């Protein structure tokens, strides 16, 4: 696989405050990489360093072989919306296209960002979701090989979000590489090839969601029963036990063992559900563990 981003031993301080510590990773072509972390974890700082907007204190960053004109091949959707007064959507798109040697066709930009009927609208008159779509359109205007998306779906309605992630998946099929941060972890779960968790100034996890599940290995078991809680609460490997009325809810790292132990009571149990943890809860657990380990 071709590596298009390589970061080695990267450190960043603001004054005496350390923001990023010994960050190392590589990004391969045609991957969707999700960078997640709590607010203030340093995600945007890391992206700004990758984009050469700010410098690191030490370490190396290699993007697209450090080509002199690497900005020809990257597209960036910033966290903030761009809202210039007295310019229409069409004008800003044409202007942005003009900065690049081989831009994406105008019609294609409109199609991918779903900006039909908004071409003649003034930028500052767009709604939050429309501004987000325009920011995406500006990011892809140069037909980039590497896309940075910082909180891309914030402010979009659910229909737009679904369409947006489908577009990102399609771009991946066209061998584009996407580096994305988002707070909507359930969305990343379905599209990301790889998750990086930025925690305590470092990358504390770097792998697939499947690997994170193995690491965290938690499942949720739920059922309704009129049986007494004493029968269940001391079962081994239960991490969290809750009972509300006749509804039981366990969290465990060994769902198979618990199901085995529930077998004798199956006649008195209804609505039994076993659920793997979502990325959201995996992330929360991972962070909790990280905090405990500190």
């Amino acid at each position, binding site marked *: 696989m071709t590596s298009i981003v390589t970061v080695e031993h990267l450190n960043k301080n603001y004054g005496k405050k350390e923001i990023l510590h010994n960050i190392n990773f590589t990004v391969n072509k045609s991957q969707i990489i999700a960078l997640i972390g709590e607010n203030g974890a340093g995600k945007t700082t890391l992206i700004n360093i990758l984009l050469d907007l700010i410098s690191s204190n030490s370490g190396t960053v290699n993007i697209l072989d450090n080509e002199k004109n690497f900005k020809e091949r990257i597209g960036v959707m910033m966290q903030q919306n761009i809202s210039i007064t007295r310019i229409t959507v069409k004008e800003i798109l044409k*202007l942005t296209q*003009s900065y690049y040697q081989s831009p994406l066709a105008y019609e294609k930009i409109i199609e991918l960002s779903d900006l039909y009927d908004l071409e003649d609208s003034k930028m500052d008159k767009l709604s939050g979701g429309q501004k987000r779509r325009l920011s995406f359109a500006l990011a892809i205007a140069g037909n980039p090989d590497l896309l940075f998306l910082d909180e891309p779906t914030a402010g979009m309605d659910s229909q737009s979000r679904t369409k947006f992630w489908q577009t990102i998946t399609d771009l991946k099929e066209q061998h584009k590489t996407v580096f994305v941060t988002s707070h909507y972890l359930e969305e990343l779960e379905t599209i990301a090839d790889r998750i990086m968790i930025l925690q305590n100034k470092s990358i504390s996890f770097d792998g697939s969601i499947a690997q994170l599940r193995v690491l965290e290995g938690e499942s949720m078991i739920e059922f309704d029963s009129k049986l007494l809680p004493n029968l269940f609460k001391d079962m081994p490997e239960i991490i969290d036990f809750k009972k509300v009325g006749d509804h039981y809810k366990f969290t465990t790292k060994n769902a198979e063992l618990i199901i085995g132990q529930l077998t004798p009571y199956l006649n008195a149990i209804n609505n039994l559900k076993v659920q793997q943890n979502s990325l959201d809860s995996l992330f929360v657990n991972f962070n909790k563990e990280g905090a405990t380990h500190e």
Partner: protein
Amino acid sequence: MNSFIYQININFKRIILRNKRFFLFDMMLPIIFYLLYSKVLVNGIPQADLKTWQMNYLISMIIYSCLLGSIITVANTLLEDKTSHFDILSRLTPLPRWQYYLSRILIFMLLNLISAIVICLVGILVNHLTLPIANWSLIILISVLGTTPLIFMGILISLANNPATVNLLNNIVVFPLAIISGLWWPITMMPKWLQSIGKLTPTFEISNIDQSILHGTIINSHYILGIILWLMIIVVITLLITKYQKHKELIIE
């Protein structure tokens, strides 16, 4: 090159054509002042001196208009570029930074040129002022080129990055500069010590070059050198502050 022409085109539309603030503030304010002091409130001026006064005041108002355009409009436009994230958008693209500024500087000069032409037309049509076309052209050209240091001063003020500070600096610079350089009232009305400060200002220097063209006297080369010196000083300060802000990472929001 196509990209540069497109930038000029877009910046012309947003900074001049669709910008009501430009027409109301940079153009109308000096025109109203001019009409008021050269047509309405002229009772105390002898008829023989009226034409000279109308001509001299026209030059003051051309420069005043260029001062408003160069500092207030430039600083506000560049600040708006930052707050609307237009500035960062262009920094993330392959667009060379010099093109970003040059495309705007040319539009700001065009903005001053339009104001200067319109004010001259008001003088011609309302006060029936007459001058050879070459002199009109030279006065307009000198006013527009001479106010280039002021455009850089506008760029410098925009580096404050904060709307309240930019507004404050605009007011601190523009109105005192207009007053002490004699654009509103003759400089001779002011105390001697203030006159000596006023004579060092770029607006006084441009005004004097224009007056020389108007009255057919020799242009004092000190004033030309003075404008060049102002330009150099302001450009160097702007570059130093930009470098400092980049070093301190103050330009990323």
